[in-house]
């Protein structure tokens, strides 16, 4: 037995390595948490990413400051004209906003929702081509936890995938693993948002549903992960074959995922309400 083992020692070692790797894979996949190794790697790489990001941002700001000086005179004239138009529109909006504030206060009072936002900067991306992951400079030291929702003023960005002390990885909603329960704001018809790497698709929409190009899509709050009412995007294209049970809508995402630099991580409130008002 020992002789056999000694003869094929290397082969045994290689097979044991494969078994170990597969066990590690299935454990980290089913565990749904951040592994220690991942946390260590992210902690080690954080200073590198943060410092390079800071240097790059400084250079980018300098460059854009220079670029913005060009054509500033022309832009000034245009803006003056726009200002006159805006003043007229503003009078109308003041009236609307008074009404809006009154109603919003009523709603806030009803829901009693206190949401805390953690500001974070994007400092890196996924190391591979197959996943849409962004790395942010906030981690467990800033009370970020797995599955916290990440958004911007424009709309939903994604969720926290893993957390290390100084940084976290965000699974964007365009990632092919991402699923968001959503509804069409106009007529409350439900569907499921799939990330396709190139963009977003709303699938499993009832074949008789009335969808129009330009319909706003918001999160439905079903599933418990994403709160209700977050803007996801607008319908750009509708696909449906006669033999298919469901319609599919191709979306224009509210957030430009290639341009985002800052995000907010939402710390969930302890109330049961899913109403999100921003």
């Amino acid at each position, binding site marked *: 037995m020992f002789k056999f083992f000694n003869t094929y020692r290397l082969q045994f070692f290689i097979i044991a390595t494969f078994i170990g790797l597969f066990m590690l894979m299935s454990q980290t996949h089913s565990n749904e948490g951040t592994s220690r190794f991942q946390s260590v790697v992210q902690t080690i790489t954080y200073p590198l990413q943060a410092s390079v990001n800071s240097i*790059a941002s400084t250079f980018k700001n300098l460059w854009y400051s220079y670029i913005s000086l060009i054509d500033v005179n022309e832009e000034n004239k245009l803006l003056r004209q726009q200002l006159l138009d805006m003043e007229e529109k503003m009078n109308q909006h003041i009236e609307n906003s008074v009404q809006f504030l009154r109603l919003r206060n009523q709603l806030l009072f009803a829901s009693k929702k206190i949401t805390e936002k953690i500001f974070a900067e994007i400092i890196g991306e*996924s190391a591979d081509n197959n996943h849409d*992951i962004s790395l942010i400079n906030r981690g467990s030291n800033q009370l970020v936890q797995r599955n916290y929702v990440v958004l911007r003023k424009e709309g939903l960005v994604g969720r926290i995938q893993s957390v290390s002390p100084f940084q976290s990885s965000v699974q964007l909603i365009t990632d092919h693993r991402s699923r968001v329960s959503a509804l069409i704001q106009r007529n409350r018809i439900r569907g499921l948002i799939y990330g396709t790497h190139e963009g977003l698709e709303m699938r499993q929409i009832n074949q008789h549903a009335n969808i129009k190009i330009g319909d706003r899509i918001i999160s439905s709050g079903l599933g418990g992960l994403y709160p209700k009412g977050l803007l996801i995007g607008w319908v750009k294209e509708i696909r449906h074959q006669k033999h298919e049970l469901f319609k599919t809508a191709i979306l224009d995402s509210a957030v430009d995922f290639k341009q985002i630099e800052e995000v907010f991580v939402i710390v969930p409130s302890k109330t049961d309400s899913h109403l999100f008002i921003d």
Partner: protein
Amino acid sequence: MRIFLLALGLMLIGLWLNIVFNTYVQIGGLKINWILMFMLILTFRHSKLVIAFVGILAGLMMDALSHGIMGLYGTSFFLTLLLISQVNKLFYANTFFAISLAVFSMSIFEGWISLSILDMFEPGLELSSKMLTSTLPLALLQGLITPIILQFVIWGENLFLRDVA
């Protein structure tokens, strides 16, 4: 020992390029897998099993910095490097063209392995589509820039392994 240190050093440089360089420079929207390229070239030139084991560490680092399923790239890197260390003498010649071709084909192989494993854990992944739109162009790109990386690896070898040679 020296080859292990060289592989480790190149892996760390590859990691730096992956996390910093790839964030700002992407050719055709593709992120070059620098770690894999260094490991492939080094294995083609030395056929040492120890590089395959360094490849596991490299793969685990890639896992940690992407999807978080630890061991996925670790397995695909290990399997690819193991295969190269066993069969490279069959078709490999130490020329720029040969090594470019070898890196191209092995990048496709590694991509196929990693996507196949990913498909096991994440059903619904469009494997053939991913192969055509992501793995194949990336492998081509990696094949094209291989001569530059090869020069760098040779420089590293001269620095670390000169006395041994």
